[in-house]
């Protein structure tokens, strides 16, 4: 690692931010059209973020501040590990388990800061968010485990490159359809979209973890949300949709998947948290185990 890596990393972060924030803006418009509204301008999300950052705020002690910095820092570090199409800021660091666990640093920082506010609504939200994570991550990791066993690599770009060899039909979502379904459902959980959004339920627990934030704290959490969305959607694009031979291909796939999930989210109601756990352990986990069994024991779709 030298200075150039860090400059490169910074530029990629900036690109990821601009892209995802624009996409969020466009999706706000898409949702509005679904609901027969006109919707905000596509750059409204940028305005919201910078406005929040520039406003005054209150703090509940050093851990409230430190947690936000740790959360955004951890999430940005994770985003640096994600290959941006074919581009990588840091070579040989896109190991899927590293990404999955570095991601947790950010989550922990956010949870810590929220609980540090002293507001019980925040703690309830965090407890739900963690339970949600226990639900969606296990099926997802199981499928990933099967992929790693099949192709002897846990590098995201490596797994993406393998898929591109066979063209469209080589994509893992085609070769391992059960795994693809599991990954899409898990992604919905990761993104915290309906039906798995009970941890931020605004009317029920006053937005949960977000309840006490304002001003720069809230602005940074907006940033965090854009970056974590970028990480999670990219994971699926790389693992199941062939990644990207070019940046453009990567971004198109990314945008389509994200918009699709967003539309799905807007026509669904909300699961209670225990319903979400039961659902994930009944359907996606069973599918994931079957898929992994087929890969490891039968070798189906591998050769």
């Amino acid at each position, binding site marked *: 690692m030298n200075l150039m890596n860090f400059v490169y*990393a910074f530029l990629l972060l900036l690109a990821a931010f601009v892209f995802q924030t624009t996409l969020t803006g466009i999706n706000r418009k898409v949702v509005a059209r679904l609901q027969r509204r006109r919707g905000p301008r596509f750059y409204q999300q940028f305005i919201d973020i910078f406005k929040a950052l*520039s*406003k*005054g705020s*209150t*703090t*509940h*002690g*050093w851990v409230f*501040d430190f947690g936000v*910095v*740790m959360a*955004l*820092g*951890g999430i940005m*570090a*994770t985003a*640096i590990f994600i290959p941006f199409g074919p581009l990588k800021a840091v070579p*040989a*660091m896109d190991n899927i*388990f*590293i990404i999955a*666990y*570095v991601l947790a*640093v950010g989550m*922990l920082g956010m*949870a*810590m800061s929220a*609980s*540090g*506010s*002293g507001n*019980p*609504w925040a*703690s309830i939200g*965090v407890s739900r968010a*963690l*339970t949600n994570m*226990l639900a969606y*991550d296990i099926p997802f*990791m*199981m499928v990933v*485990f*099967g992929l790693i*066993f099949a192709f*002897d*690599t846990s*590098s995201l770009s490596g797994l993406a490159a393998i898929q591109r060899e066979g063209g469209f039909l080589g994509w893992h979502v085609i070769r391992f359809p059960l795994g693809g379904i599991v990954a899409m459902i898990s992604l919905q959980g990761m993104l915290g979209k309906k039906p798995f959004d009970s941890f931020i339920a605004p009317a029920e627990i006053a937005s949960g973890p977000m*309840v*006490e934030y304002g*001003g*720069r704290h809230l*602005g*940074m959490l907006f940033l965090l949300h854009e970056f974590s969305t970028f990480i999670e959607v990219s994971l699926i694009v790389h693992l199941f949709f062939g990644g990207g031979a070019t940046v453009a291909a990567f971004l198109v796939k990314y945008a389509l998947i994200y918009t699709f999930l967003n539309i799905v989210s807007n026509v669904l109601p909300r699961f209670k*948290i*225990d319903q979400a*756990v*039961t659902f994930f352990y009944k359907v996606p986990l069973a599918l994931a*185990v079957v898929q992994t069994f087929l890969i*490891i024991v039968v070798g189906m779709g591998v050769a």
Partner: protein
Amino acid sequence: MTFDILIVLMFLGAVTAYLVSKADLKAGAYATVLFSLGALVLLLLGRGEIGSEFTILFMGFEVTTIGWYFSGVMVLVYAMTAFFNSYWMDKMIYPGSYNFLYLFSLGGTVGLFFAKDLITLFIFWEIVVWSSTFIVPMGKSRRAAVVYYTISTIGSMATLYGIMLLHRISGTLDIQGAFAPLKNDPVLATVIFFIFIMAGLTKIGIFPFHIWLPLAHGSAPHTFSPVLSGGLVKMGAFIAYMSVGILPAYEAFKGSLTVMGIPIQIYALMILGAVSIVLGTLMAIKQDDAKKLIAYSSVANGGYILIGILLMDQLAFAGSMMHLFNHAIASAAAFLAIAVVAHRTGTTKISELGGMIHRMPLTYLTYLIAIISLAGIPPMGGFVSKWLIIQGLADQGLMFMALAAFFGSIGSFLYVFRPLAAVFLGQLAPRHEELASAPLLMKIPMTILMVLILFFGVLPGWILGIIGQIQVAAGIEPVMMSGNSILAVNGVLNTLNVFMVFGFGFLIALVIFMLMQKSRRVGLMDTYTSAEFIYTPELYHYGSAFYAPFERLYARHPSVEDFLMALAYKGHEAGLMVNALFFSHKPGVTVFWITVIVAVVTLGGVGL
């Protein structure tokens, strides 16, 4: 020369500490600090003597790399925890004996890891079991000690039987020689394997022997829980290593049925490990006592360690060896942090605490770093070891072990966060507003442990080097490093780069934070309350039943404890029956039994 001095010094130190305690309690506690630190220094100085042999009285010892490594872990935990001893002297009934047993058990563990023959091994094993059995009831409960001793005895008696069987077969008690004839006899090897490993399983707390951990760890004196969880549990891992590594289980079971290339005998134990991970995680999530919570997390982590050791491969074995060290220091640090809270507030119940960060920030930081490592999140040590274990499992395609490992990993976020949120964060109760922070002597070990956890997470090279030597000695491929990168079959981990990228991200976030308008500081009660007026901070704190919706899902789970309690009750009933039949106060009954016995003896004699 260093190691016989070390072992003898610990036993002499035990007596010295006892005598000093008679004169002055605090001085006796400081003696335990000095002696255990001395042991640490001697151990580090003696690294060059690996491979040498020595004898004390009739007992033979051999300094092996793995023995040195295990002793290092153990002595480090003992030495760090010893700093806390002096604060509990006035709370114990027998403080002098506590100091004595503390060093006595330390001597026992070191001797155990260097034992050259099986009898020496057993003697030192029992020294540790007995001395810790007497320390446990000095805490909250006598029953905990009874359960601990009973479970330990099941293990040690099985192992003793295994040792005698080995002696009968091979005619030697030497560790290397005794197992040699088993290589060509799979049936006998299977029997010895299961009998011998029993002591290990009971000590690690593998299902169904896990029930002693929450009881003993939860109710032992606050200063001994870190040693129990961080240290003594690891003795079991040593026995597990002997059962697969020295026995050569893989060689002996060559003809057996295999599952994914693993002999069925070993696979069966790995399933127990996986069950322990899931069970420990689920139970830890619902505990209200912080110490019991960490105890159940030890059950889960014991499962990881057992699976890794049983695999005896390049990655998972290395991960498991490193996890042993990482879990030892992280769980010791977590227990110590809780001990500070208990020292200041008098309770370890999560629902009775809150907001401790505002009174003891360093303790909070210690707990935070410890749990980040326990949960296996970078850049702490626990991440490196869990990463190695999971890469190893992925390499072998052991999907059900991996399922348990993933569940344990994500589940650990849940249970480690619970004390963080409810003990250290949240509302500070008014009755706790005047609490002082941790005393200086407690801050020293906590700071050292924090630095160690972080250091070995960023630069694990030194430890992995030692583990590589252990692997070479055990005849397996050593874990590969190149610079700061760990090279696994299916992935590369450069911990320094992870740390640097994380630092970079943190820096950007910090710059954004600093550039923006300064925030106004408000109190903890100055929060959104849905327009209610709330004046009691205790009531505005989310501390009990933290994961209520999730806990509800398995509230009515079957429990092995219930079964064992029923068994104990039946045993008690049988005892009552024997009592009623033989130990009657009526002379007639006694005369009857004497007549019967005399008759049986006489007739039996005639028959012969």
